[in-house]
């Protein structure tokens, strides 16, 4: 979908973020970028499965290095969970489970893949 460009004021904020590497768990709706790393390290023992298993599940769902991500929506309570576009799919996940996914934010006006 190519019809939802950020509003101008959001774009100004986003411009400062462009090129920055952030955890997916910290991203806001409208943020988009490329996944640069999927790790297995944050909060071991806090996911109901070990972090290696969480990493494999993320990878299986397509959270792999090089994939394009855009945060579409967030929940009403604690802005959690989040819904993201991952290449051409839509995935919902909790922020807590998204901490090991690192993405490099695009510049706001950058062409979409």
């Amino acid at each position: 979908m190519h019809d939802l460009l950020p509003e101008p004021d959001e774009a100004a904020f986003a411009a400062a973020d462009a090129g920055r590497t952030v955890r997916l768990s910290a991203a806001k709706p409208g943020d988009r970028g490329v996944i640069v790393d999927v790790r297995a390290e944050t909060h071991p023992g806090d996911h109901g499965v070990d972090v290696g298993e969480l990493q494999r599940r993320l990878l299986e769902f397509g959270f792999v290095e090089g994939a394009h991500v855009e945060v579409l929506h967030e929940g009403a309570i604690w802005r959690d969970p989040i819904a993201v576009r991952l290449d051409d799919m839509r995935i919902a996940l909790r922020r807590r489970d998204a901490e090991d996914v690192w993405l490099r934010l695009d510049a706001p006006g950058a062409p979409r893949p």
Partner: protein
Amino acid sequence: MTDASLPTAALPGARVALVGNPNSGKTALFNALTGSRQKVANYAGVTVERKEGQIAAPSGRMLSVLDLPGTYSLRARSPDEVVTRDAVLGKLAGEQPPDVLICVADATNLRLVLRLILELKAVGRPMVLALNMYDIAQRQGLRIDLDGLARDIGCPIVTTVATRKRGVDDLVAQVDGLIAAGALSADSTWREPDAGQIRDAHREAQRILKANVRPAERPDTFTGKVDGVLLHPIAGLATLFLLLFVMFQAVFTWSKGAGDLMGDGFSAVGGFLAAHLPPGLLASFLTDGVIAGVGSVLVFLPQILVLFFFIILLEDFGYMARAAFLMDRIMGGAGLHGRAFIPLLSSFACAIPGIMATRVIDNKRDRLTTILVAPLMTCSARIPVYTLIISAFIPNRPVAGVLNLPGLVMFGLYATGIVSALAVSFVTRRLFWRGAVEPFLMELPAYKLPDPLNVARSLYLRGKIFVTRAGTIIFPIMILVWFLSSFPGAPPGATDPAINYSLAGRIGHLLQPALAPIGFNWQMTVALIPGFAAREVAVATLGTVYAIGGGARDALVTTLQHHWSIATGLAFLAWYVFAPQCASTFGVVKRETNSWLWPGVMLVYMTSLAYLAAFLVYQTARAVGLG
């Protein structure tokens, strides 16, 4: 192999298994392939649904098709996915290995399934790829080089539109062709992939995708627009609650006529038998045991069908994943998984389909927590009890101008059920099963218009499963409860109702001192024993112990007003919010958990809560002068 050019010869049958991602239209394709020739059961030893159907290929060969649970990977994470993995590998106990696999893929969403295909290739079985929803792919202007793709993945491809039955014959012919050509399974080289191998597989999938698929010219923007509303933090939740409201209205209004008709029907059959059979054990067994017992469960069938109709419709539309997204944090606060939403919702009609629906929850602890709290949701069997006691003890007076007190009490009883379910789950997760809940990772599928035929078929299947499973569990329990309430019979010249002399009566009298602190008299205690069959049976049994014949409800209301204090009436309501007065639920829990431990845990915790709640209500009410 048999020569395929001799169609008259009986060809040996073959086994085919359907594998694919969730939301790939796999079940629709299974329905299109097998039509009504389907059998639904469980796999041996596990509570995973086994769906099998038969196809007669044009060559005369019979193909038996197994619809395996959807998965993203053979690295199984849930009981369902273990079944898929083991069936594909040919290691599933009690199952013959499949001769051919059909991998079902959503043609508009190939990335993840390509990785699954690479895993399936390693298993070494002959395979056909069904590119399903091909019409949508064409409409979006997605260009797929079918020959190139077939070459790259090394298996034949058939394009299908399951809902229109398009490509189905071609698919059967391809499968039959593979078998006739003597395609054999190679040795499996599949190993559980580690993170590096998953990354490699994605790279390979990406390469295949790039080489053979041109991105859609007119991608689906509808789903994004609808999600803008349905996943909105405020508008989304408002829509969800509106949908729930409409659904409950429908459950209780649409089904009322049919439910009443069934209830009347069962009463009429019972009355007919009572009138035409010589009075005695047989008549009592048939009317009070069999007809009343089975009828008391089947009257809920219309409600359950209406509820399932909505659930299937929303599921097929793609909304259920959104509901789980919206509810995840609310449920998660109580330690429940977002997917527990549907089972708990179903439990408002009846805990039995609710508990059966917990199969969608992957993690065992998440699933058990949901099963344990499901009966706290106010099921429709409580309504007759609630309305009886409310009309006897709650004065019909307006509150704050627009509301009325009975309605408010009813609402309070529902709210208490929900709040205590969340509280019990919270305590369970904090005290007994520490540790975080499973990761919540879920695909939000593109919205699709539900196919009426598939909805009808799923609804029929759900109804059939409820009737057969519930029926086989409930029937023996009804017989037991009837036996307890009928033996031994009343001595000659007895003046009290016969139930008073029965085993149930004796147990009731024995228990009465224990229940005195919560304000229950012996008539109530006795009524609780047959009331164990199903909650609403207690209403009829109270009629019996107070010797009011023919179900005259008004007379019963007056009698209760004379014999019970308000405190007792309120305590009875509090008891019914929590009490495990439903033997069928235990039967289903035993079946779904494969152990008597969990029904036992449920019995103990629910009875304790019921006693505590009734005690507090009774003593408080007495303290304020309602005793």
